């Protein structure tokens, strides 16, 4: 069977499974559509959160990102997991107790203000739309790479599959497909990693293998890696960073942003009671960690594998002849993700970091520049071939990458469509709409959201590349503080919360726009986006944490100087703090 046929079989089978679930898990009410009926088991919910959270970027790109910068990229590992601690202790249980369907609904009720709810809806939509474009584009790319179809065509196929289960089943369909998608993606990620780890270290657990001995050299794996890459002029993998303030703020922004992202928060509304919301957070992180503990191992091992492929006899000996390159290099060259240019015409692949300090050695060895470049994504995509695994593992990676993209896209689309049908249509324009009418409105909103996301995925606007800045910045600077103060302070009132959200948002977006262009329009930035220009060395990606502090401070000061919230609101705050009487998530 050809590789194409195997990939088609795996992807086709996984899609049939998702569609089967869609038919089985149809939504009969708005409660089914928004919160999957509200009786999801905490472990099931934990698995679903895992799939909801881990996107095409986590699956395909994160290991490559870590491989490229080593210790510095730990920010992503800590930031995208540490947020769950905040979520599980500061938000999820109380929002579950509140027992409504959407994040803006809590903000609107708690701050007794339709305007506060509207600000929350706008923040939610901007953050989620930016995020979903990347998922749709990622699905298109995965399709075109593994199934030899045009990426726009791939995108449309992916959209049709999502359409099936999310329009029919809403959160109910999404929950069960996410569980299936998690299983596909984690198996796909783990199998090649286990074999690579066995190959290099003899340890079947990649996360442990990373810190054990490299069998061939007898050195610790990371020592060996550092030796090889520094010999060729690359930066030390485990070295400390100079700008620690920025690393700390970036990590904090990712953590607070993670906790404030609506598509993650609404998953906690699907469990039966408050204690289940607490347990769900722990289970979610267990299932996320299965991938996140493997990713740094894949990163370091795949990087070492690439180096030893090019320098089979060590870094002091001549690199490999181009004609002797292994099969996986040939295969990925076809896609353009690996490129070779023989600058000194010696028929060998010189791969090194052409820095000034390396120049004398390069000259002595007759090298005329780095000849080998690869796209970071191949660290995961080419993993099965690098480890000489059979074709079905490659098929699994194809299905896994698509599962990661589809599951996150569906979660985001539900957050967007429920904000439109529940917060805008029912909340603002037609409060008397019947449950049936609202369910129809929710389905139509979902359908429209999918069409828009598909279009934007095929024609990504400039801001689509700014997921980290925009989605995490907005969630950290506007949504998280408003939600947290709504639970932990009885004193913050409507004006305080709105002023805080707007201040956090304007501050954060302005700082981002100064460096990245106003509304990300190229050429409109006031300063070049380079570390010398950053205030105190704080990058625009790290500013969300400061934005959150601005939000808290403004909200407190404004609230203190205006009237305290009415008595029934203070009672509402009391009631979300105590688990008793949670009941099912319900509408009014």
């Amino acid at each position, binding site marked *: 069977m050809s590789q194409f046929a195997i990939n088609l079989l795996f992807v086709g089978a996984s899609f049939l499974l998702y569609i089967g679930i869609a038919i089985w898990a149809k939504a009969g009410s708005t409660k089914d559509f928004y919160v999957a009926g509200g009786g999801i088991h905490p472990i099931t919910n934990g698995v679903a959160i895992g799939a909801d959270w881990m996107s095409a970027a986590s699956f395909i790109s994160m290991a490559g990102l870590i491989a490229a910068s080593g210790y510095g990229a730990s920010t992503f590992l800590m930031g995208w*997991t540490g947020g*769950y601690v905040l979520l599980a202790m500061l938000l999820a249980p109380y929002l579950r107790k509140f027992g409504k369907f959407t994040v803006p609904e809590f903000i609107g009720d708690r701050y007794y203000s339709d305007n506060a709810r509207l600000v929350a809806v706008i923040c939610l939509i901007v953050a989620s739309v930016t995020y979903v474009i990347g998922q749709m584009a990622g699905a298109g790319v995965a399709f075109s790479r593994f199934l030899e179809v045009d990426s726009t065509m791939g995108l449309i196929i992916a959209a049709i599959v999502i359409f099936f289960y999310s329009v029919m089943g809403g959160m109910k369909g999404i929950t069960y497909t996410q569980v299936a998608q998690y299983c596909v993606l984690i198996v796909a990620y783990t199998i090649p990693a286990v074999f690579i780890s066995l190959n290099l270290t003899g340890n079947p657990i990649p996360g442990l293998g990373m810190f054990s001995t490299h069998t061939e050299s007898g050195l*610790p794996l990371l020592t060996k890696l550092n030796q090889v890459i520094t010999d060729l002029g690359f930066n030390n993998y*485990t070295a*400390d960073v100079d700008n620690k303030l920025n690393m700390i703020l970036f990590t904090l922004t990712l953590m607070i942003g993670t906790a404030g992202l609506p598509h993650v928060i609404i998953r906690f509304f699907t469990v039966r009671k408050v204690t289940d919301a607490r347990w769900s957070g722990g289970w979610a*992180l267990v299932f996320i960690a299965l991938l996140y503990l493997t990713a740094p191992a894949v990163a370091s091992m795949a990087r070492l594998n690439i180096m030893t492929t090019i320098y089979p006899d060590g870094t002091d000996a001549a690199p490999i002849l181009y004609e002797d390159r292994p099969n996986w290099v040939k295969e990925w060259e076809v896609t353009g993700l690996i490129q070779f240019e023989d600058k000194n015409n010696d028929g060998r692949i010189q791969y090194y970091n052409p820095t000034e300090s390396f120049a004398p050695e390069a000259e002595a060895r007759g090298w005329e520049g780095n000849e080998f470049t690869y796209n970071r994504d191949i660290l995961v995509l080419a993993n099965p071939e690098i480890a000489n695994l059979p074709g079905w593992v490659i098929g699994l990676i194809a299905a896994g990458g698509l599962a990661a993209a589809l599951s996150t896209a569906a979660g985001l689309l539900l957050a967007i469509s429920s904000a439109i049908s529940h917060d805008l249509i029912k909340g603002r324009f037609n409060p008397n709409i019947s449950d049936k009418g609202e369910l129809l409105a929710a389905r139509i909103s979902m359908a429209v959201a999918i069409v828009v996301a598909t279009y934007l995925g095929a024609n990504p606007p400039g801001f689509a590349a700014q997921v980290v800045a925009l989605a995490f910045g907005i969630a950290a600077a506007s949504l998280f503080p408003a939600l947290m103060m709504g639970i932990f302070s009885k004193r913050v009132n409507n004006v305080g919360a709105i002023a805080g959200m707007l201040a956090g948002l304007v501050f954060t977006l302005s700082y981002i726009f100064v460096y990245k262009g106003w509304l990300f329009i190229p050429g409109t930035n006031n300063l070049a986006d380079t570390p010398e220009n950053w205030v105190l060395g704080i990058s625009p990606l790290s500013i969300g944490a400061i934005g959150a502090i601005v939000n808290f401070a403004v909200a407190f000061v404004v609230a203190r100087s205006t009237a305290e919230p009415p008595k029934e609101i203070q009672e509402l705050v009391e009631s979300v703090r105590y688990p*008793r009487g949670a009941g099912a998530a319900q509408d009014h």
Partner: protein
Amino acid sequence: MSGHSYDAEKYWKANLRLIGGSLVVWFLVSYGAAMLFRPLLAGISVGGTDLGFWFAQQGSILTFIVLIFFYAWRMNKIDEQFGVSEE
């Protein structure tokens, strides 16, 4: 909760204390061991590198998991103790 306002207040204080303690650990492993204090821990080697690197790429994630389960377990106990659990 109006009938038990004294207990309600104590319950909330117990929750805040637990959250505070948990967040101190959360801070110490990630912002502390993995970043700020990494130079101080440089002498402790772990598999070819130092303890700070291990905390940055694995240790803090493992600690986060333990923290959330510990919080859920303790909080459920506190719920029962104050008679505010769900059933």
